[in-house]
């Protein structure tokens, strides 16, 4: 069987699975799977760039995705004018001060000769800078958070169209990736893993606790949309008429219309990214990346700057994850920091890349769709399984109840099992690297 045929077949199977969902459950849930599948595919592309191209082990995907979500809030919501007057400027000043302190410390460290004097200067700078920062930062934050805490309590955003947030999300993630890459790249691969794991937890902690930024765990809801609202469509006589002509009731039609709108937007982004990474893979740059991945020592001997290239690809991959994060928050219409779970956002994306085929962009896309489909459908399947198993047991027995309650946790078990099986029996994934 030729390769193109096999790969098309694999994509067709996933398509059929989604179609089955559409026919047997509802077109709404099928489209939901498609939309999140598209986003998952983009995240998987980002991780594949890092792992498949360059062999970098990033377990902080969740953090970059969350930064994308933060960008969606900071770009699209309306600014809270009073908050800016009360303390917005103070917060900005404090942040700039903090950055200046760190820059000054780095400068002192690199420019001054090593010795006791340098240590003293650095300590003085850091301690003084920290207290100065806190003395400006704390009152401003208190002032901002005091303003209308039930609905705002944050500084708001820039009131720009939410589509602008997508590239901004990528930029934010790229910035975080630069900081991590600078410190942890060039050391053992495990160190990068631990460092990314840490930065992801910290980003989530910041999102949860800095209420002035994006309301923390109070969540930001009702973000603007790039597509029309269902209610408006239902009130539009033209839309209702065309829906009735098609034989769908207007309520269902409006929600399908909105979801299809998102699907089109996401598909456009995915196609653009896919073309770009395919071109990158085939370019001299892509060949160099893979050469570095396969033999760092040889590549270094050929004059390639391994650490710089790693930093570059690490930033690019993280930026793609940030972009996907902004898209996901747009789709949800809300930012809920409490829902970011490493198992769901970091490790699931890894399963996608490994199952799809690391090093192959189409593999990553396939993995994104397939694993997302399974992630959504394993729960009903697990529940069904448990109901079958427990069918013979007496109603109300504790074992039956426990088994039925636990069906929800089948997801993690299944994902781990899939990952281990693929790694063991088909380590190159469904669509292997050429």
């Amino acid at each position, binding site marked *: 069987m030729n390769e193109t045929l096999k790969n098309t077949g694999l994509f067709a199977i996933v398509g059929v699975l989604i179609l089955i969902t559409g026919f047997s459950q509802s077109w709404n849930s099928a489209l939901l799977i498609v939309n999140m599948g598209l986003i998952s595919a983009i995240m998987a592309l980002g991780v594949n760039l890092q792992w498949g191209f360059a062999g970098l082990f990033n377990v902080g995907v969740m953090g970059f995705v969350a930064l994308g979500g933060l960008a969606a809030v900071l770009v699209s919501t309306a600014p809270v004018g009073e908050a800016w007057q009360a303390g917005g400027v103070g917060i900005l000043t404090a942040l700039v001060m903090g950055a200046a302190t760190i820059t000054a410390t780095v400068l002192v460290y690199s420019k001054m000769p090593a010795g006791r004097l340098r240590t003293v200067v650095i300590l003085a700078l850091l301690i003084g800078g920290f207290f100065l920062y806190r003395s400006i930062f704390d009152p401003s934050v208190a002032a901002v958070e005091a303003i209308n805490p039930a609905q705002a309590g944050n500084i708001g955003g820039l009131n720009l169209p939410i589509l602008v947030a997508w590239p901004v999300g990528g930029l934010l993630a790229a910035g975080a990736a630069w900081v991590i890459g600078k410190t942890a790249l060039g050391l*053992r691969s*495990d*160190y990068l893993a631990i*460092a990314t794991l840490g930065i992801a937890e*910290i980003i989530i902690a910041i999102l949860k606790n800095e209420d002035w930024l994006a309301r923390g765990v109070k969540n930001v809801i009702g973000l603007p949309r790039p597509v029309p609202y269902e209610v408006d469509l239902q009130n539009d006589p033209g839309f209702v008429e065309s829906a009735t002509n098609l034989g769908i009731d207007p309520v269902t039609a409006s929600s399908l219309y909105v979801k299809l709108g998102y699907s089109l937007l996401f598909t456009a982004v995915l196609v653009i990214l896919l073309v770009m990474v395919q071109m990158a893979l085939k370019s001299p740059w892509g060949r160099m990346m893979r050469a570095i991945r396969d033999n760092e020592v040889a590549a270094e001997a050929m004059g390639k700057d391994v650490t710089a290239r790693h930093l570059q690809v690490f930033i690019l991959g993280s930026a793609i994850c940030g972009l996907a994060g902004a898209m996901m928050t747009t789709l949800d219409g809300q930012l809920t920091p409490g829902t970011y779970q490493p*198992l769901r956002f970091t490790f699931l994306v890894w399963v996608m890349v490994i199952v799809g085929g690391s090093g192959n962009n189409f593999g990553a896309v396939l993995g994104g769709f397939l694993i997302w489909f399974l992630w959504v459908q394993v729960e009903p399947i697990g529940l069904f399984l448990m109901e079958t198993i427990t069918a013979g047991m007496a109603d109300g027995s504790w074992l039956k109840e426990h088994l039925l309650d636990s069906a929800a946790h089948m997801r993690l078990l299944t994902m781990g099992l899939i990952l*281990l099986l693929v790694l063991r029996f088909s380590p190159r994934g469904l669509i292997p690297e050429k």
Partner: protein
Amino acid sequence: MDFLNAFVALSNFVLIPAIAYGSQLALGALGVTLIYGILRFSNFAHGDTMAFGAMVTILITWWMQSVGISLGPLPTALLALPFGILGCMALLLFTDRVVYKFYRVQKAKPVILVIVSMGVMFIMNGLVRFVIGPDDQRFADGERFIISARTFREMTGLSEGLAFRTSQGITIVTAVVVVAALFWFLNKTRTGKSMRAYSDNEDLALLSGINPERVVMYTWMLVAGLATIAGVLYGLDKSFKPFTYFQLLLPIFAAAIVGGLGNPVGAIAGGFVIAFSEVMITYAWKKVAGYLIPAWEPEGLVQLLSTDYKFAVSFVILLIVLLFKPTGLFKGKAV
């Protein structure tokens, strides 16, 4: 008197909790470091191994409580602990046989093993949630305090109370016993020596007739013991919740790396470095400062960072060590 009060407040809120937490981290980091030294990969499933061992212990504790077995003033969990360790050993040896062995024989790259351990983490995490659920579980019983704040105040006449909880006392005593036993095992017994030899130089160890499978088996058994003890102590001291154990991965790895991966002494030192920095940086110093400098009345809590950012502390320490001394405070294996 004020000085004594300050010291008591400091012990109560910083020293004792940090020593207890540090012992728990050190036990966890010892497991990570042993796996790194002998099997040569960072085990991402370690947090969930701790959760699994603790879960088995909790289930047996509940059973013991229901049939009325107890240790009097001590928590019943101590009686159930050996069974928890056995359960955890069985699981780890089983995982090694069906999962890790294949890659060991293949001599797979360490990073592949890390990804494999990620899969194991998923399964263990799912298993724990499947059996005991994702919620908080309470299993501590017996006497709550060795010294309660009130008794201490009555005893000494100081205005500041010092509470020393049973779980903290048990943690410290157990950690000392376990670490002493571990070092005795590694330094004095034949098996321990062969483990160290294998960790230092695999080829030389093989040449001198050490059976690698035996070394690996003992490593997993030791790791199961350490992980279960660490998990149960943490559960007794704080509470048992599967997700918290997953989150412990970060401070544990930070401790192991700060001390020097693959170096047991380093793991212990790293555990205490991380625990003390975490507790001291997130502690509100207002009370202590109030005793020491009565004239100064700070507005805030004199807290450097809110407790929500405790992970940031281990992370920053980790970054500093990675930047300036990548092999850790004590010489580890990693470069």
